[in-house]
């Protein structure tokens, strides 16, 4: 039974170990092919995941859930992992060594994320979170020859450790004041339990830790450096997988464990959302390095999603899930295109992308669409994501007019973000390339890009499937 619940995780672990073993026995194997093979296998795992169905009761003595929410995220993480593996395979030639281990680590991190999707207990939360985080320390500093990579690794390491320190301390206080680490029991306790200052402290410190994962103000400050320094596939994984994991936890903790005391944290999330929106979108304005810019942009998007959380309603929760879903495709599309392009142009600076549309139509259109989707322009998926989030906020605003201010800030942020996203679009299509040698794109990359683009446009126009999935997943919170 428990095995059934964790079969996907087990599959990934098996894949990881298998990779290590093949590498041990046949070190000469083509690493690129290996990566693509793994991607396919993960894809199959994803297919398999659709055979599973939500289960009402918990597993492992209440520490693990396999509800719609969990499945939604597991599938999301599998998609992300598959595409990240493709990205890594395309990136393989830029990593001096240990490619197999790289894949293995990606898979193990993915395992951690899949567990995170089901976490229902603070202890498991912490352990799984650490599994992901520590793996990312290694992945971030994987390019040992590049100072930027190591530097990013160190920063992520220290700040990450700091945040997990806060998390643990917070968990300690929650445990101490409520006597439980299980979300359901916690909620039950909070229903009728008076909550003292100590409990609030614990709550805030946990929020701190999770806020760090999703790069929300004031814990966002690591993001730009790490995004810029990390190997691009890792950046992609950070921006999509790790962030989604953070939100998965945040939603679980806030909307299951801490839902009864939402009056304590709604205002806080509201303010954080606004601050994050402002910081991310303003900070991105002067950036020239595309990865760094995407770092800021991921802060901004954390802000958008926090809008959905701050609204504390069914619409909002569903909106966040939908947003994460489409955001993964959009971001991966961007990063895949960047990886393919930088292979030739060799620089992450936006001006270097000038004339990309001419040099490689597919990369041009992919990157442009990704940017447009991030900016939230129809008919791309990002548009509907934002639409839902705004809808959620406005719905809440019907009772609490402060939320109109939040919506206003969000609106302003949309306009500002349009500027820097379309600046990239400008480089791609409006500016002439200095050297016009065409950029080759491997078939695998093409496939991945097409998948992303079709997803972006498809979800953007036919929103219903993803919306239904998200709403279904969010239904576990029993919000109105």
């Amino acid at each position: 039974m428990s095995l059934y619940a964790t079969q996907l995780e087990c599959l990934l672990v098996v894949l990881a170990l298998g990779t290590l073993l093949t590498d041990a026995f046949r070190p000469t194997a083509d690493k690129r092919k290996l990566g693509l093979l793994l991607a396919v296998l993960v894809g199959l795992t994803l297919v398999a995941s659709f055979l599973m169905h939500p289960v009402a009761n918990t597993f492992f003595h209440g520490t693990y859930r396999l509800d719609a929410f969990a499945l939604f995220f597991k599938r999301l993480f599998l998609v992300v992992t598959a595409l990240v593996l493709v990205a890594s395979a395309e990136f393989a030639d830029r990593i001096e060594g240990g490619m197999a281990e790289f894949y293995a680590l990606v898979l193990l991190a993915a395992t951690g994320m899949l567990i995170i999707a089901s976490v229902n207990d603070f202890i498991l939360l912490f352990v799984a979170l650490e599994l992901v985080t520590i793996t990312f320390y290694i992945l971030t500093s994987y390019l040992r020859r590049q100072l930027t990579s190591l530097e990013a690794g160190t920063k992520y390491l220290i700040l990450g450790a700091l945040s997990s320190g806060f998390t643990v301390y917070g968990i300690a206080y929650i445990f101490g004041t409520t006597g439980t680490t299980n979300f359901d029991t916690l909620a039950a306790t909070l229903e009728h339990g008076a909550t003292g200052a100590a409990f609030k402290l614990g709550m805030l410190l946990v929020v701190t830790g999770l806020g760090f994962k999703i790069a929300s103000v004031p814990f966002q400050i690591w993001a730009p450096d790490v995004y810029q320094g990390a190997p691009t596939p890792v950046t992609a994984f950070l921006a999509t997988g790790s962030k989604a994991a953070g939100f998965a936890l945040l939603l679980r903790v806030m909307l299951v464990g801490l839902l009864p005391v939402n009056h304590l944290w709604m205002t806080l999330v509201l303010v954080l959302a606004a601050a994050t929106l402002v910081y991310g979108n303003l900070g991105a304005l002067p950036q020239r390095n595309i990865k760094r810019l995407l770092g800021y942009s991921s802060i901004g998007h954390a802000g958008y999603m926090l809008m959905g959380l701050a609204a504390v309603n069914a619409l909002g929760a569903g909106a966040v899930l939908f947003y994460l879903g489409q955001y993964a495709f959009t971001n991966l599309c961007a990063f895949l295109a960047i990886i393919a392009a930088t292979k030739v142009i060799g620089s992450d600076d936006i001006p270097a992308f000038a004339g990309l549309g001419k040099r490689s139509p597919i990369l041009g259109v992919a990157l442009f669409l990704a940017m447009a989707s991030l900016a939230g322009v129809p008919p791309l998926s990002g548009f509907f994501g934002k639409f839902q989030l705004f809808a959620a906020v406005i719905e809440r605003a019907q009772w609490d007019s402060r939320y109109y201010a939040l919506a206003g800030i969000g609106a302003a942020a949309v306009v500002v973000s349009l500027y820097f996203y379309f600046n990239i679009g400008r480089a791609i299509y409006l500016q002439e390339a200095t050297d016009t040698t065409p950029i080759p794109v491997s078939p695998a990359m093409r496939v991945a890009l097409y998948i992303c683009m079709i997803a972006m446009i498809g979800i953007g126009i036919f929103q219903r499937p993803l919306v239904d999935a998200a709403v279904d997943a969010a239904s576990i919170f029993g919000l109105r």
Partner: protein
Amino acid sequence: MNLPWIILFSPLVAAVVITVFTRRFQMLSALISIAAILIGFAFSLSIFKFLATGGNLELIQPRPFQWLVIGDLVKIEFGATMDRLSILMLLVVTGVGSAIHIYSVGYMKGDPGFSRFFACLSLFTFSMLGIVLANNFIQIFIFWELVGVSSYLLIGFWFEKPSAAEAGKKAFLVNRIGDFGMMLGVLLLWTQTGTFNFAELPGKIAAIPAGTLGLIGALIFCGAVGKSAQFPLHVWLPDAMEGPTPVSALIHAATMVAAGVYMLCRVSFLILPSHTALTLIAWIGGITAVMAATIAIAQNDIKRILAYSTLSQLGYMVMAVGLGGTTAAMFHLTTHAFFKALLFLGAGSVILALHHEQDIWKMGGLWKKTPITFATFMIGTLALAGVFPFAGFYSKDEILLLAKAHSLPLFILGTATAFLTAYYMGREVFVVFFGKPRDHHAYEHAHESPWVMTLPLVFLAILSVIGGWHSAVPHFLDPATEIEHSNLGYVLLLVPLAGFAFAAKIYWKAEPSDAPVKAALGKVWTWVENKYYFDELYLWIVKYVQGTIAATCELFDRWILQRLGIGGLASTTSIAGKTLRLLQTGNIQSYAFFFGLGVTVIIYYVVVR
């Protein structure tokens, strides 16, 4: 009863056909256009006959159709009024029009834009007839604008001549200013009565407070001021002489410029009750009359002299309206149409004879060379001056009587104008046709015009002679009235004669010149020579007043709105972005510091506070 429709639309059809199909076949185009207007003339005559033989107007009322209907609030018809006024005007327009159409064939011969010319001419005829037949204010406004545009096109017919292009533009814009007032007047009237229809309006006038009615009258009069080139909007008409002479004859002498007067007569029910409006109109008319006449004495362009005389004659008519004598106004309008058209065509024939020479001081002694032209021109002159028994005498007589009856100052103005008219016409005739030829080369080549041109001259000459006999027009307009014949008329006959005598004394010599008059008038001469500097004044206003406003707007747009407003917003945003970047020092400890700071602040706000 569809005759009116046929009359109205056949020129339009002609215009369209010419533009679309027969542009290349010049004669065909001309024929089509002439045919169209002749049809109009014929039908008008038949209607006239029908009426003259005691036919009932009701029988020939065409059914209007609803052109624009909005709820039950706005009903704008497209109809045709059939009454004596409009029928008279129909006759004038189509009759004189036909003559001029035919004349044009000769005058425009060989011009590359021959077909275009006739297309425009037909378009104009259509618009003019539209004004005549209109049965409501919106409809009249529509055609009002259309004649404006066709005159724009015809004045600027030789568009490559900058002066012509300018003149066309000027005419259109000045008229627009008049229409501005007219539109407002119509709107005001509508809000008061809820209808635009001439038929329905009279019943509802009584309800309007006197002040408002006066205002309405004045505003609508603005339209007439523009169209009929009354002071202070008269400046466009002289420039309009840049157009081909037939155009000047048809549009800027006989018909269009008279439209203002016609419109006033059409809506007299609106004006007559309001004393203020009447006074205003009368005085504007009087002033225009005398002012134009004075200007005319110092002009050297054969057509411009006629143009100013047109102005002053229009002044007469408007004055007549202002004095409540719509009949008299229409009477003078009719006769004026005849002889002024005649004069213009005559001038045109002269100009053609001298190969487009318009300066009277380069002419002279032409009566031998162009006898018919001379004879007809002479008739026109006498008629215009109001010499018995020519048409002008009777019509002008009416107006002066009216003036005498109502206000002495206006009567004096009128008489003075009469005198001046005779004087400057005498000047023109003597300088152009008598004395020794001054430009011998031109003189040698001068020749009488072909029959297509002389025929209309004769036709119009006849009309100018008989046009006023038995006060046919007033009788036709309202058979009821009985024209009283006072002896004053015959006294007034002395005025033009005096004018001629005076002119003759100065100009009837081998080498006439303005020198003596110049000497006599001194400063005044320069003023009238420069048309009282109206153009300069308006130019100044346009250049400095409007120019300044426009420049201000543009600067505000560029600097305040775009640079300061939008640019400011944008730069503030980007500055904010750059400042945020300062946090991102890259130093781990500062990062940790911000991290801790964030935590402490949050704890402070949520827990401690």
